[in-house]
């Protein structure tokens, strides 16, 4: 058992390094880096590339990857992305870093190749030496982890708490502007923090690879555990993050000790550890009535005041007049054009493209769930894919195993998800945006590993086949069924936004205090929108399963849900038509890449999806609304020019008359 505890402390130590990196950057910049796991994977893959594939030797490989590449990556990402995020909304911060988490592993595959790696070496020379400490065998790899944990966590914590450098870092979170005025260059501090954080990510990756495996999927568990520790630390407390990490490592190891390794419940329980810790923390917070609502406030009034304010030219009285005078076509032309295109598209294509298009439209339905919960409700839920998955898997069960009519099974799948959505909504309702994102992400991992792995769904890896309804058996016919379902839900979403409910939702998104003192029940609004979104996700999931004629649990991985969000947000999170465009892009781009690009560039669409989400840092409303806005700017400039010409003309005429 002691041996298991030692192994657990090693795992916990790696979690601790990861959670420390997350807390340090959050403490200094207000950004919770959802790409931390991907950065860890990227550096670990580079270390493997240098050490194992190109035989650079351990020391040179470690120096190059941890002390050169990792800080350079952190600094490059700071300049490219993080510096623009400081005073952005929680949603933009989460989505931009999630976009990075999508792009980085794909970039790693593009650079380092697609070879699958079965075992990855650590920092100890092979074969790894084993020491006997008090009768317990301890490997050199484990000793190195202990040393690294002590060096990084303890010394790092002391520096942050007691040194002048630490003081400057902590001052940054309160106000970069005030830090600047007091003689410290905030940019230099930020660059340093991101370099150190990236080093932490690399270290966690290189140390963790021999234990958890060098695979993006395995790194999600590492990051889920680190996130759970960060939640328990209320995003800021380094000691609590470290202690929780160590406890989770030991708990994971003890599960392996107590449960037989052959049992499926062993891996299920291990994946449930982070969620169990979060659940304990939530219950404790509930009992102690601790405030988890306003965790994302960064920067002082001065910082807010010196930020560019308002919507510039588009918020002027002229713009308002232009808006009211814009014709029907100018106002709705884009949406009408896309609708016509999506109506005729099924008639224009065939073969593999036709089978992708039917899925694309089903994706559009699922994406409307994101539009509802994130775009309208303002809640950063990262578990929509779990809801869609539950809808899909139950559609398969009801339609195939219980012989229900398939479309009825789709609706029933949605209704099964509805109460789960309401429940998650009620649990997370009082929490700040980042907590909601972290908890729903961990929930999704739990569902993926605990529920989707049940025998009735996996069916020995085959999944459950689903027959389409007889009247819409072909791809083309079922594409139109999906389009009709999409149209009905999209009309509902558009109507909701224009209605009193939509205005009240805007109120809740903007300021809960303002909304509550106006008579709006924030809890009711959020729970209702969460339930509706879950229903839509469940129906969309069912439609996608029917479109694919199979309900396969592997199609609903949490990481894929993050890619979905990245695609949708980069197109537009608040537009119904954007949901369909995103569905088409997500379903068609990979096949376009496979068909028209060399196989080495097959990861390009994923990188593009990730980059699109990173672009949200600059254009938070997505490309659809951004282009609409550009069009309005163009019209406004034209109107001003015409007005200017008319004035000049009148002055000229008056001059001539006098």
């Amino acid at each position, binding site marked *: 058992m002691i041996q298991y505890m030692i192994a657990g402390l090693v795992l916990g130590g790696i979690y601790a390094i990861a959670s420390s990196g997350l807390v340090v950057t959050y403490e200094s910049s207000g950004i919770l880096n959802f790409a931390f796991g991907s950065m860890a994977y990227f550096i670990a893959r580079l270390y493997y590339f240098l050490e194992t594939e190109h035989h650079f030797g351990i020391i040179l490989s470690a120096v190059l990857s941890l002390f050169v590449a990792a800080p350079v990556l952190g600094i490059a990402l700071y300049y490219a992305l993080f510096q623009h995020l400081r005073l952005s909304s929680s949603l933009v911060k989460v989505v931009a870093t999630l976009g990075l988490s999508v792009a980085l592993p794909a970039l790693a595959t593009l650079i380092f190749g697609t070879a699958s790696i079965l075992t990855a070496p650590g920092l100890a020379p092979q074969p790894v030496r084993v020491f006997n400490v008090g009768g317990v065998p301890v490997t050199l790899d484990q000793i190195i982890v202990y040393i690294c944990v002590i060096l990084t966590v303890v010394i790092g914590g002391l520096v942050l708490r007691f040194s002048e450098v630490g003081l400057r870092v902590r001052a940054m979170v309160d106000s970069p502007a005030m830090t600047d005025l007091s003689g410290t260059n905030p940019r230099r501090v930020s660059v340093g923090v991101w370099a150190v954080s990236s080093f932490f990510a690399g270290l966690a990756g290189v140390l963790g690879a021999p234990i958890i495996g060098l695979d993006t999927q395995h790194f999600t568990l590492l990051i889920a555990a680190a996130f759970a520790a960060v939640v328990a630390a209320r995003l800021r407390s380094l000691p609590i993050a470290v202690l929780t990490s160590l406890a989770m490592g030991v708990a994971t190891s003890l599960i392996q000790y107590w449960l037989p390794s052959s049992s499926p419940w062993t891996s299920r329980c291990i994946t449930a550890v982070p969620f169990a810790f979060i659940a304990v923390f939530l219950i404790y917070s509930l009992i102690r009535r601790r405030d988890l609502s306003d965790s994302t406030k960064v920067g002082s009034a001065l910082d807010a005041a010196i930020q560019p304010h*308002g*919507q*510039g030219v588009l*918020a*002027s*009285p002229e713009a*308002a*007049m232009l*808006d*009211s005078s814009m014709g029907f076509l100018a106002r709705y032309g884009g949406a009408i054009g896309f609708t016509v295109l999506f109506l005729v598209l099924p008639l224009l294509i065939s073969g593999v493209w036709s089978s992708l298009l039917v899925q694309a439209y089903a994706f559009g339905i699922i994406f409307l769930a994101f539009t509802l919960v994130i775009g309208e409700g303002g809640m950063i839920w990262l578990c929509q894919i779990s809801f869609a998955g539950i809808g899909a898997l139950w559609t398969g069960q009801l339609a195939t195993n219980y012989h229900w009519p398939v479309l009825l099974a789709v609706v029933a799948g949605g209704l099964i998800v509805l109460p789960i959505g309401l429940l998650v909504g009620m649990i997370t309702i009082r929490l700040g945006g980042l907590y909601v994102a972290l908890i729903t992400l961990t929930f999704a991992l739990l569902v993926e590993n605990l529920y989707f792995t049940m025998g009735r769904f996996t069916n020995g890896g085959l999944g459950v086949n689903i027959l389409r309804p007889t009247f819409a058996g072909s791809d083309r016919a079922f594409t139109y069924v999906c389009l009709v379902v999409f149209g009905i839900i999209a009309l*509902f979403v558009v*109507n*909701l936004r*224009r*209605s*009193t*409910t*939509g*205005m*009240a939702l*805007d*109120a809740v*998104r*903007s*300021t809960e*205090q*303002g*909304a*509550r*003192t*106006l*008579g*709006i*029940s*924030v809890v009711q609004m959020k729970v209702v929108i969460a339930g509706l979104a879950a229903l839509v996700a469940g129906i969309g999931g069912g439609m996608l399963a029917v479109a694919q004629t199979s309900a396969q649990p592997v199609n609903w991985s949490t990481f894929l849900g993050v890619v979905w969000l990245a695609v949708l947000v980069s197109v537009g999170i608040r537009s119904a038509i954007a949901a369909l465009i995103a569905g088409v892009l997500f379903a068609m781009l990979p096949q376009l890449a496979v068909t028209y690009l060399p196989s080495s560039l097959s990861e390009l669409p994923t990188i593009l999806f990730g980059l699109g989400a990173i672009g949200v840092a600059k254009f938070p409303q997505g490309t659809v609304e951004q282009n609409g806005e550009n069009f309005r700017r163009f019209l406004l400039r034209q109107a001003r020019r015409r007005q200017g010409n008319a004035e000049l003309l009148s002055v000229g005429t008056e001059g001539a008359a006098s």
Partner: protein
Amino acid sequence: MTPPAPHSDFALECQGITKQFGGLIAVNDVSLHVPKGDIVGLVGPNGAGKSTLFACISGLLRHEHGTVFLNGNDVTKVSPQKRARKGMARTFQQPQLFSGLTVREHVVLAHRLRFESRRLWTDMIGPSSLRKPPTSETEAVNRIIELLEIQDLAGLPVSSLPLGSTRLVEVARALACAPEILLLDEPLSGLDVNESEQLARALQRVVKESDHGLSMLFVEHDVATVLSLSDTIYVLDFGQLIASGTPEEIRSSDVVRAAYLGDEIVSTKEGDE
């Protein structure tokens, strides 16, 4: 000891409100009342506990001790949204506006929440958003917008407005709830002289012309405005009520003069003379 019974002529009554943050007592056993149809001012230096008291009264903060009565009904344990529905409206020191809505939409939403609250849910599934709004709503909304003289801003998104205008929008939104008690947290701060006078005039008029006996409790740093607008004034210092009375009584109070108002009250008095 049983607390005294609430007074039926008071729109708002607070009895012994105490609010602590850890070891700090932000508001200490404060009692005040706002008679129906009156304007009551609340003054005090920064950190005196005025905004905390407002948060307790509106229900956004839970206080440890004390009772809040709205029109004689105990609302101490009632949520902020229910207090709003019972006729309490407020503005904030940092305006809390809805960034995606225009000025007019703020007023429309507040009006609907007060008079057609079922539309909050029925609109979601019905086509009401396509129909023209009822004349009564349009007239009521126009009246408030005209009263605050913000017709030029009505179609603009609030995110484009300067601070002074956002205060006017917040007051318009609060008035659209047709409240019986209006709580204003530093409504004049950030306004220029013209805007201040415009808002002060509008507030006096709205209380005077109100057909349902609107009362007002407001926090303000501009002492001259408080003295000229209020029927009664309460003075807070370090979380405690140190004086209360008519503007004349406050003007001549040595306690207030010594503890807070200092030279400013003297100059105001001399100016009046």
